[in-house]
């Protein structure tokens, strides 16, 4: 295996709540290659956002706690760094774009001030240089009259424009990794298409690696090279994008695809729904976390939690059943 840019091993994160400890992330391991786009897919509460927040140590603690795991970035474990050290990584080498462009910008500061903050902090620019660079960045993300707009406040921008500003901010220090947490979920489809096109262009120009967190299997299909599917705090399937969509292995991924109506479908099919609802794990399960909703379940699924294992070329899945034949692996 070539050297990984980011290598996460056995990550576990828990939250203390009044109802008990919630096991949000349970032993998640994955790697990210240089310049690669990795999609992380799952429904709300599956741990996809918490995983990435844990890697950047942005989990509020308490109540959250990273209880195990390593996250190597250029040979250094992000989880062992001092607060001072990780501050130099965050925003500079690994940066993040958040879901809601309406609430993740500070409404009482101008766009210019918010954009120059990291330039001054991480790159040691003075204010003048930083403002020039900020205007360049806004232009890169396709905001017209960039220079004049630096003194505008977030409410003067539309949703799509705000997300462009967020992306400009994330790119300001030329990061190696851009983590995008559902950046288009709050946007309309035509605006979503604009943002995805923009990210693709920037990726080709700047060559950074991207981790794209989403619940939308459609967005990931056109963007990512490799996809991880999460459920109940576990990675349950992982494969290169073409392999995944042509050869679904895990019952949950199969169900998820079946529940999507498709624009290119012929005739009218009833949607395949997954009964029940996603779990909140108050204890680590000693069964497969998906088994209460699974159509393929066999006896073993209720007794042991399957590990993520190779099921094909670069294709890993965590399931006791071979869903192609319906019998035990």
């Amino acid at each position, binding site marked *: 295996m070539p050297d990984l840019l980011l290598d996460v091993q056995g990550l576990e994160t828990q939250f203390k709540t009044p109802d008990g400890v919630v096991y949000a992330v349970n032993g998640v391991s994955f790697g990210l290659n240089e310049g690669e786009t990795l999609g992380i897919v799952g*429904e*709300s509460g599956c741990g996809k956002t918490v995983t990435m927040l844990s890697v950047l140590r942005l989990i509020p603690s308490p109540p959250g706690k990273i209880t195990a795991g390593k996250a190597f970035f250029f040979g250094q474990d992000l989880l062992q760094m001092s607060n001072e050290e990780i501050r130099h990584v965050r925003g500079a080498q690994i940066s993040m774009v958040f879901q809601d462009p309406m609430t993740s910008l500070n409404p009482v500061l101008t766009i210019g001030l918010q954009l120059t903050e990291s330039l001054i902090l991480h790159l040691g620019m003075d204010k003048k240089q930083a403002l020039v660079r900020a205007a360049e960045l806004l232009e890169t993300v396709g905001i017209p009259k960039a220079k004049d707009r630096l003194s505008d406040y977030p409410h003067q921008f*539309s949703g*799509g*424009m705000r997300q462009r500003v967020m992306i400009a901010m994330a790119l300001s220090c030329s990061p190696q990794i851009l983590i995008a947490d559902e950046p288009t979920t709050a946007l*309309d*489809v*035509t*605006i*979503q*298409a*604009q943002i*995805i*096109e923009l990210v693709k262009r920037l990726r080709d120009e700047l060559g950074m690696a991207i981790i794209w967190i989403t*619940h*939308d*299997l*459609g*967005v*990931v*299909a*056109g963007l990512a090279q490799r996809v991880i599917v999460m459920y109940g705090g576990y990675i349950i399937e992982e494969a290169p*994008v*073409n392999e995944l*969509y*042509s050869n679904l292995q895990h019952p949950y991924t199969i*169900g*998820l*695809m*079946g*529940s*999507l*109506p*498709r*624009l*290119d*479908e012929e005739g*009218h099919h*009833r*949607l*395949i*729904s*997954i*009964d029940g*609802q*996603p779990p909140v794990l108050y204890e680590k399960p000693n069964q497969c976390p998906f088994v209460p909703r699974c159509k393929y379940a066999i006896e073993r699924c209720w007794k042991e939690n399957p590990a993520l294992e190779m099921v094909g070329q670069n294709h890993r899945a965590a399931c006791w059943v071979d869903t192609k034949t319906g019998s035990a692996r």
Partner: protein
Amino acid sequence: MAEDNVILRVDNLVKHFPITRGIIVQKQIGAVHAVDGISFEVKRGETLGLVGESGCGKSTTGRTVLQLYRPTSGSVVFDGVDLVKIKGEELRHMRRKMQMIFQDPYASLNPRMTVGEIVGESLVVHKIAKKNEIEERVANLLELVGLNPAFSSRYPHEFSGGQRQRIGVARALALQPALIVCDEPISALDVSIQAQVVNLLEDLQKQFNLTYLFIAHDLSMVRHISKHVAVMYLGVLVEMTDRDELYSQPLHPYTQALLSAIPIPDPVADSKRQRTILEGDVPSPVNPPSGCRFRTRCPIAEAQCAESRPEFRELRPAHFVACHLAK
């Protein structure tokens, strides 16, 4: 086009919201042109999908049809009665036959009422069932939407999003309506739960011969559930036709762009597609563009598009489109 089985006919519906200035003496200084002259009809037992981006007026249309907003002008003929002309007890009587399912299952259920009270409220209000019957009716309704009847004494916060939306469906069904306006009923739900609710809506439609006005921004879901689809942009309808025709032969440039913007969950098919990426944002409905509303973002706009508003014409049989240039 008058046919007997048309249950809802909306004609030239307009809804403007006034913008006022001043606290004591209010002066109108403008208007939000939320819905600006739209016409469509829905046949009994069918589903009309109404799609568009946020702020295009699709929810306002739904609410104006139900007379939750009174229209500025136009008519809404439902079951042979023009709802715009009636009021008071007469309108209240008509309301029994038309119900709504709301978008946000967290905000549309009163947190201080039990599920039984929520679902049974309309039965009490319209004095349809006696007190002792209500409990049984509620239990039946809950069962119908796939909830345990024993839940009727619980409060909304004890339920998940998908279950709450089922409660909303049960409430809408309580009066045995003919028409249900579904205002983005699934967009707040997770993918696997969305399919459950859509399947439920389809089953209920078959069982009770319900008519749906299904409002959504998700074109693939609308395609799945609707028989006819109307596309809305900035207060006007730009295209309306049979679902298969719309998706295979979209005539309006906005519909074409909208369709091409939807990601397909298949990397091979997705990479083969021709993409039209629209530039810019939807203009403000306070001051909509002259002529064709879409011309500011339209890839093929010409001079005439700014001058006159394109007529909503039947370009092909049962295929309406509002564009000067569509052929």
